[in-house]
């Protein structure tokens, strides 16, 4: 078998294994709950029959591996169970399916993340590469200092500064990003401008610094110097000598930051009251609505793992040392 295919398959298997273990970790969350949580969910006035029925519905009378198989089977079919909220002590069940809660919000979050990525990724790569090429110039220093400051500040600080200048002092954009499914695209972009800008600023800072470091590392390597000394034009050096080896670090940088977006989105959605999965998860944590929390955590973790996995695979596939084995 070609070494590339073998390495890719190995990585895929490892990724699946990780996903499996992560799902176990997330599932065992319920196991760690204190025993009387059914009462906490249903309220003090819950009758014994209601509590017993609820426990049976959760399958608490079965061993945990049976429940895990039930749960993961449901997840694979797109069924995350029903939410804890909306249950009453009297046994009347107004709870909703977790999928119905998450579905529209997942789309919103995807929209916000991709809108940010489309703007931020090219800009960050451009800034990083130019900063590396003109390193130690005034341009490089200004970009570096600004990004260091952005990295060290919490996301909500960046968010509120943007609100202060672009929403409160000069009302250019709305500070509440309340989109609904029937909002038209242009309006949706306009309303999500500030959250998207906040996220973009934060990930551009990270991505730019990492790209700069990767490129500088590469340009310092002896074979690039050799190519220069041979008298090749600088565009040829960059396109044919540097770039094949630069794909791996650049792709890694992009994937790492898109993964970072997954985490950053939580805080930013809360600041701008954007109806996304992050906000849903925070609300669910406050009300201790475990099925919703589990579903959100699984979605976030899976996105994170898949992004990192694809970065690994792309860097394996573009690695010249593996493509042309000796």
């Amino acid at each position, binding site marked *: 078998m070609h070494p590339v295919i073998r390495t890719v398959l190995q990585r895929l298997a490892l990724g699946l294994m*990780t996903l499996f*273990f*992560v799902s176990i*970790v*997330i599932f065992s*969350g319920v196991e*760690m*709950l204190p025993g009387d949580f059914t009462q906490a969910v249903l309220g003090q006035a819950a009758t014994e029959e209601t509590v017993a029925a609820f426990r049976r519905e959760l399958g608490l009378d079965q061993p945990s591996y049976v429940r895990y198989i039930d749960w993961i089977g449901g997840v694979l079919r797109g069924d995350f169970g029903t939410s804890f909220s909306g249950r009453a002590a009297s046994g009347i069940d107004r709870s909703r399916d977790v999928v119905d809660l998450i579905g529209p919000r997942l789309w919103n979050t995807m929209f916000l993340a991709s809108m940010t990525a489309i703007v931020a990724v090219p800009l960050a790569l451009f800034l990083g590469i130019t900063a590396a090429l003109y*390193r130690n110039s005034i341009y490089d220093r200004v970009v570096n200092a600004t990004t*260091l*400051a952005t990295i*060290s*500040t*919490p*996301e*909500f*600080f960046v968010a*509120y*500064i943007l*609100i*202060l200048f672009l929403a*409160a*002092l000069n009302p250019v954009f709305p*500070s509440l990003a309340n989109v609904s499914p029937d909002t038209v695209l242009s309006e949706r972009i306009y309303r999500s401008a500030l959250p998207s800008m906040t996220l973009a600023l934060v990930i551009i800072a990270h991505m730019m610094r990492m790209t700069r470091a990767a490129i*500088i590392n590469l340009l*310092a390597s002896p074979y690039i110097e050799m190519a220069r000394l041979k008298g090749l034009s600088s565009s040829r050096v960059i396109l044919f000598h540097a770039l094949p080896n630069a794909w791996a670090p650049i792709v890694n940088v992009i994937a790492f930051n898109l*993964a970072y977006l*997954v*985490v950053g989105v*939580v*805080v930013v959605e*809360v*600041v701008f009251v954007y109806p996304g999965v992050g906000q849903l*998860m*925070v609300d*669910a*944590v*406050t009300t*201790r*609505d*475990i099925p919703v*929390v*589990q579903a*959100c*955590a699984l979605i*976030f*973790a899976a996105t*994170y*793992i898949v992004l*990192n996995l694809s970065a690994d695979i792309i860097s394996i596939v573009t690695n010249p040392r593996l493509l042309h084995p000796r």
Partner: protein
Amino acid sequence: MSTSEGYSAKDEVGQVRTRRTWLQRTWIELKKAPPTAWMGMIVISVYLLVALFAPIIAPYGEAEITPIPYAPWGGDHFFGTDQIGRDILSRLIFGARNTIGIALATTFLAFLIGGGFALMAAISRGWVDQVLSRFVDILMAIPSLIFALMLLSIFGSNVISLICIIAVLDSTRVFRLTRAVAMNVVVMEYVEAAKLRGEGLGWIMRREILPNIMPPLVAEFGLRFCFVFLTIAALSFLGVGIQPPTADWGSMVRENASLIQFAQFDLKAGITPLLPAAAIAILTIAVNFVVDWFLMKTSGLRDEH
């Protein structure tokens, strides 16, 4: 031999090297530090002083409620009051104590757990190392903020569980680094000698390996502290971290956020929610500056060239 006037190279070379005290050596190093590092150290010491002497400096109590909610800046309340009439300045000062204290405790705990297991893995190798490393890999596959949110929903939001959860999640990063640097040391002959001498695991960890991996760990401590500090601030901001009435910078931003709408009419009021956020940002930047300098000094690690 030596002449009292003028410089003599022979004299200087002939001199026995003066033995400097620890204080003198530190001072010489500090004098060579770049201005950014100095700035960072000054900022950190100011924060620490404020945190230590909070009850003396603060004009009002931590949760003391005064009659006027949302009082403007100036007058009795330097930065005004919040939604139920608590003095913002006092809460900022007490916030330094709580926020920094909790972040420090968490970082220490993370180093204790992560560093301990890492040294154990590095020394014993074999299956212990394999099991611990794979376990850490799995924990690191979940974004830490998400994991922290999930665990907080299970254990409930209180300071103790907050500290434990963040410490355990962060110890994975400490584990990775410590194991990597310790691996280079455990293969040294003197560690082998200590093992043959029959020293126990604890002795080898503390006396043979730890002193030799201190510099990267100290730098990592600074960076970890920043990270923990930002995570706790984010969680408190989301309302699932440090709970009121304890003053904390993250939750203060959330509580006063609505004031920002009035920036057009009263700029000072509009800035109020940014004060605690700025306090967080300044401390993180300061720690970063100091860590940068420390790294450059101990490992000769430079940006490029």
